[in-house]
């Protein structure tokens, strides 16, 4: 009988233990800030997979190796997380005290992730860096404090297939009205006239980035002072009208409702899409993979402006990081001259002036990245974002689907997107 009672007691203890372990908050072995000599392992989330065979992935791999060699007591544990997953997982991880020490984030979503509590404040050392090529005052949290630094710059560019345009006897369009006209001709010749996508499977990447640049071109603020979406104006309508006109001339691909960044990009590479507006980060890849693909500044909007918005990837420190100093060391290295030079070999635009003093940028190999950097500097300006970019991007996708499938007008499109963003 005694044995049985012990058995019951042991069982109950085990069961209670399971429950208690499950219910208790997680704790890390080292709760204190590591001193500079102690070995530290940083967790780092990036969307790039360094095992892939492309220049950007190779640059990331080299940069992490370079940082570890320069800081033998710090190792970096990289987790490859797509942007979509990052947007959903970061707030969860932060709420559970499991945010990575360092992560990359796309400029427009920084304020939203900050509002979701995903960031730690940057250390005071961050304010000592003063050679950012663009002001970083849009990378802030709800309290206005900076939470991230720029890692790479980009803006929108106009891509076109020279061969297709020659085949249909069209010259490179310089206004959005001309884009509509040429897209109609290309569609009549069996091509997708203007590649864009209304799918939200990839967080509406194509349409939201294009919208962001277009609003800069027409000098339309996206949010009002209260942080509410407020772009359904005459200027904002111009974007909707452009899409509606493209639809009316058959210039949008029939698959536009399900097209995403990947399919539009593949269509350009495969020579089935005549024109598109995408980020400058694709310039080097396209040049090497399809010589018919060329790029030009954005077509002029009614304002006569071709200036888009400066966006790009940023780096920040995760909420509750126990290794803030080491994390900042890593960020400082990744945005520094050595890593920036590596980054540039992959076609990405480094963000600090000091990087461009490296010898590489005076060589012919750097001509392309130098020209992209000049274009980003002369043809884009950064602006602030509210903490609801994901809602706005999804709203644009859904409004685009309605525009194509239900025949919404340009003004109805822009109103629908605005309403969705304010829901």
């Amino acid at each position: 009988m005694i044995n049985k009672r012990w058995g019951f007691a042991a069982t109950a203890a085990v069961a209670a233990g399971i429950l208690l372990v499950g219910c208790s908050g997680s704790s890390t072995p080292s709760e204190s800030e590591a001193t500079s000599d102690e070995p530290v392992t940083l967790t780092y989330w990036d969307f790039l997979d360094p095992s892939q065979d492309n220049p950007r992935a190779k640059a990331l791999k080299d940069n992490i190796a370079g940082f570890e060699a320069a800081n033998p007591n710090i190792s970096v544990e990289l987790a490859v997380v797509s942007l979509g997953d990052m947007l959903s997982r970061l707030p969860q991880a932060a709420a559970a005290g499991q945010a990575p020490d360092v992560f990359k984030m796309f400029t427009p979503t920084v304020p939203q992730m900050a509002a979701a509590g995903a960031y730690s404040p940057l250390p005071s050392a961050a304010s000592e860096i003063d050679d950012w090529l663009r002001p970083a005052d849009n990378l802030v949290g709800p309290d206005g404090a900076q939470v991230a630094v720029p890692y790479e710059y980009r803006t929108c560019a106009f891509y076109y297939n020279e061969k297709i345009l020659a085949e249909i006897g069209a010259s490179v369009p310089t206004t959005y009205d001309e884009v509509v006209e040429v897209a109609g001709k290309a569609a009549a010749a069996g091509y997708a006239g203007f590649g864009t996508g209304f799918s939200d499977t990839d967080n509406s990447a194509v349409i939201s980035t294009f919208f962001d640049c277009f609003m800069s071109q027409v000098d339309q603020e996206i949010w009002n002072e209260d942080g509410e979406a407020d772009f359904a104006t005459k200027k904002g309508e111009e974007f909707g009208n452009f899409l509606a006109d493209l639809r009316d001339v058959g210039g949008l691909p029939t698959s536009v409702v399900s097209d995403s960044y990947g399919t539009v990009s593949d269509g350009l590479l495969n020579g089935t899409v005549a024109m598109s507006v995408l980020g400058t980060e694709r310039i080097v890849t396209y040049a090497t993979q399809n010589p018919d693909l060329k790029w030009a500044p954005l077509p002029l909007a009614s304002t006569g402006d071709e200036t888009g918005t400066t966006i790009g990837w940023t780096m920040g420190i995760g909420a509750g990081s126990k290794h803030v100093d080491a994390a900042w060391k890593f960020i400082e290295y990744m945005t520094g001259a050595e890593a920036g030079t590596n980054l540039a070999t992959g076609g990405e635009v480094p963000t600090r002036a000091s990087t461009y003093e490296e010898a590489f940028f005076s060589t012919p190999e750097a001509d392309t990245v130098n020209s992209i950097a000049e274009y980003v500097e002369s043809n884009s300006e950064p602006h602030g974002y509210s903490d609801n970019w994901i809602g706005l991007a999804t709203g644009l996708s859904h409004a685009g689907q309605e525009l194509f499938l239900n025949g919404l007008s340009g003004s109805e499109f822009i109103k629908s997107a605005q309403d969705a963003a304010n829901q």
Partner: protein
Amino acid sequence: MSITREPSTEVTGLAAGSGVPVVRRPRKDRLVWLYVVPVSAVFLFVFIGPLIYTAWTALHETTYYEIGEFSGLNSFVELFSDPSLPAQIGITLMFSVGALVIALPAGLLSAIVLNGLHRFKRTVRSLFLLTWLMSQATAGTIWLWFLNPNFGPATAITTSLGFGPTDVFSSPTTALIAVTLITAWWSYPQAMLLFLGALQTVPEELYESLKVDGGGIWRSFFNITLPYLRNTIVSVVIVLLMLYVQMVTIILVTTRGGPLGATETLSMSVYNQTFVEFDLSGASATALLLFAINIVLTLVAIRFRRKETL
């Protein structure tokens, strides 16, 4: 020859003041708690706990994943006043029943074919199981690539036949049909496996007797196979319905609920509310509705099961 003895009941004394003998359960019976307690603890931890937490979340305001103030039934009021709710329930039923109607006969037919095979049985069974062995994300991605209107192999085939590109995910109707078919394609081996197990329990003598009596294939199917499989069919219906009603991954990878919400089932809505709108409270309310629908569907299916097996 072995003799088993029924456990006898011990009478150990009289209940105080009642004169009624106190009956203590035999030791063997009491030992059962050793097994029941851990199982109950785990059940509490992985099911009851999360269920209570979901209900708790639905009754509170949330900001991202932080639970705020008590909000009563607000999230349920919002849920039931949402004009898209009836459409989402309709889509969930169309998707689930549609996939079931395809996967159930496909699974049964495959099982019958496999059961009748005498050579290469293992190889063929492995081939049939291949689709189920791949993850839902992989299945969705493969079909997304295959049906891509710009460069997918399906487009190459249909274009060469003069039908134009396969643009299935761009229209609400075809998108729903496509995700239903992909889900049925991925899941039918699960039904096949369950049917195959059940078919192997049908006594061969019954088929032989029927054959002697002049019965053909159809008679043996309707008079022997189907009655023997009745309970398995109900089980398969329940398992598959649960799977379909809760399906997220294939829809997420292919359409994410679009276009125009045409493939947004209740499960997909829970996902979108949680990870796109960051509305944890609303998502919890929808999840509880989904749970209720699951229970109703299961109870309906169980009613068709033979009483003696319950």
